[in-house]
């Protein structure tokens, strides 16, 4: 597969289960080795300049990755230190004022300041997810990878999270690479890319996709396309069997 994402773009990468979305995102975030080809993120090669790539990306993985034994703030503090933003101090109060202000500001934006010092294991899935987003934005990444970020969240939590992410894009100009099963979340994307059976099937702005497939919503267009693509695939398989016979 081959595609490019412009700086500041909101890029949605959609596809059914097992299509290869998480595999692609794992390669792009340097956590999985690619078998061939070239990948560049923010101008850096993911194999030869993986450190620079990691400095420039933020990742919200499909599976939550906060340490449940620590408080949300402790998770954020360790992240900030791993990215070399601040020297490690054993308590929040001992951290530089700059760090404290930044954490409190980000926690305020997601309305979570009161839960900042609560053990993550005691937070709801939505609350923990918001802190995960806060953590991934501490180092102001140029590219934010969101692998099904709202999976398991209720409607209100999803709405709040997207409100926050929209603000991040607007205020920071962050490039967002999204995979999701909630197709409506990709309605406001600049580009939607459909992946099926490990290959890119369609890549264009959502409006163009809806127009070309004669659908009112992106979800309708997506379902319609996958049905047609699936039927074509089955036809091709059938043809192959007949030819072989």
């Amino acid at each position, binding site marked *: 597969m081959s595609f490019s994402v412009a700086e500041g773009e909101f890029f949605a990468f959609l596809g059914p289960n097992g299509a290869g979305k998480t595999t692609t995102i794992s390669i792009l975030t340097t956590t*999985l080795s690619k078998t061939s080809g070239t990948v560049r993120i923010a101008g850096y090669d993911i194999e030869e300049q993986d450190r*620079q790539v990691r400095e420039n990306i933020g990742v919200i993985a499909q599976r939550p990755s906060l340490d449940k034994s620590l408080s949300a703030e402790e998770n954020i503090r*360790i992240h900030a230190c*791993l990215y070399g933003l601040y*020297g490690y101090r054993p308590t929040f109060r001992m951290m530089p004022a700059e760090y404290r202000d930044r954490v409190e500001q980000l926690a305020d934006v997601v309305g979570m300041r009161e839960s900042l010092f609560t053990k993550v294991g005691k937070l709801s899935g939505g609350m923990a997810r918001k802190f995960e987003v806060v953590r991934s934005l501490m*180092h102001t990444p140029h590219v934010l990878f969101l692998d099904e970020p709202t999976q398991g969240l209720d409607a209100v939590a999803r709405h709040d999270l997207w409100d926050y992410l929209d603000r991040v894009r607007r205020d920071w100009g962050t490039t967002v690479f999204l995979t999701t099963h909630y197709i409506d979340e990709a309605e406001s994307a600049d580009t939607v890319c459909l992946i099926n059976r490990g290959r890119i099937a369609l890549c264009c702005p959502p409006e163009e996709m809806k127009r070309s497939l004669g659908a009112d919503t992106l979800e309708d267009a997506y379902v319609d396309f996958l049905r047609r693509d699936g039927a074509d695939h089955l036809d091709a398989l059938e043809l192959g069997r007949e030819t072989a016979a």
Partner: protein
Amino acid sequence: MSSITLTAGAVRPITSRAARELNAVVAVAARDITITLKSPATLVMSLVMPLLMMGMIGGNLMQNMAGGLDFNFGTFMLVGMLINMLFMMTTMGMVTLVDDSDDNYSAELLVSPVSRYSIVIGKILGSSFMAIVSCLGVLVVGLVMGITLAPWQLLGLLALAPLMCLSGGALAMIVMGVIKSNKLANMAVMMITMPQMFLSGVIIPIGNSSGVLMVLSRILPMTYCVDLGRAVVYAGSPDFDSVVLFNPMVSLVAIITLTVLCLIVGTYLYARSEKNR
């Protein structure tokens, strides 16, 4: 949601590569120490372990089998147990790497822009906190049994402690690099630590070992750790030759060589397994 406008923040990142790696080591180690301090059960287990090892096994050996030795078995055993605790508890602490993988926290660590060695060394140092707590337990049990060390001897062992912990943690990394199941990792760590306890001269002298047992003892890093520890404690003592097997420099070189080797191989296996999971 509030109407606060986000600012990118006037962060001045640490620019020196070495300082960043060191900061990462400290942060990773601090995470494990924080988790240990928040878990009273872990702390209690760290203190109970010496009671079982030193008090019961060591106590029985001292009362029933140490009569024919030409040196004080109590001091011999106390030093062995202190090194054993550093080695064993650090090794056991490394099993949490498998937990990190299960909880997906390893993704957070491995996607950060720091060396894999910094992550592993930080993890080893964090695990060694529990080992230090266990050593305090050993000293308390020793005190109850009437076995003590002079302050200078304790300081000597304390100075060696980071190397001993690093050695145990590096050995554990080989296992963590290939095992991804918590249950299996715990069993494997027990299989590493228990034989070492008996083959490395922790509580049973190995000066007269021969054949397979001798060969096994010479390839285990803990043998050299225990011997170097005893070399420090028995320095200048008439019992030095009866207790210490190797020249301290030989032990030091052996520990460093085996530790570096295990660290390189273990970190490579761990990073590879996480990248291909």
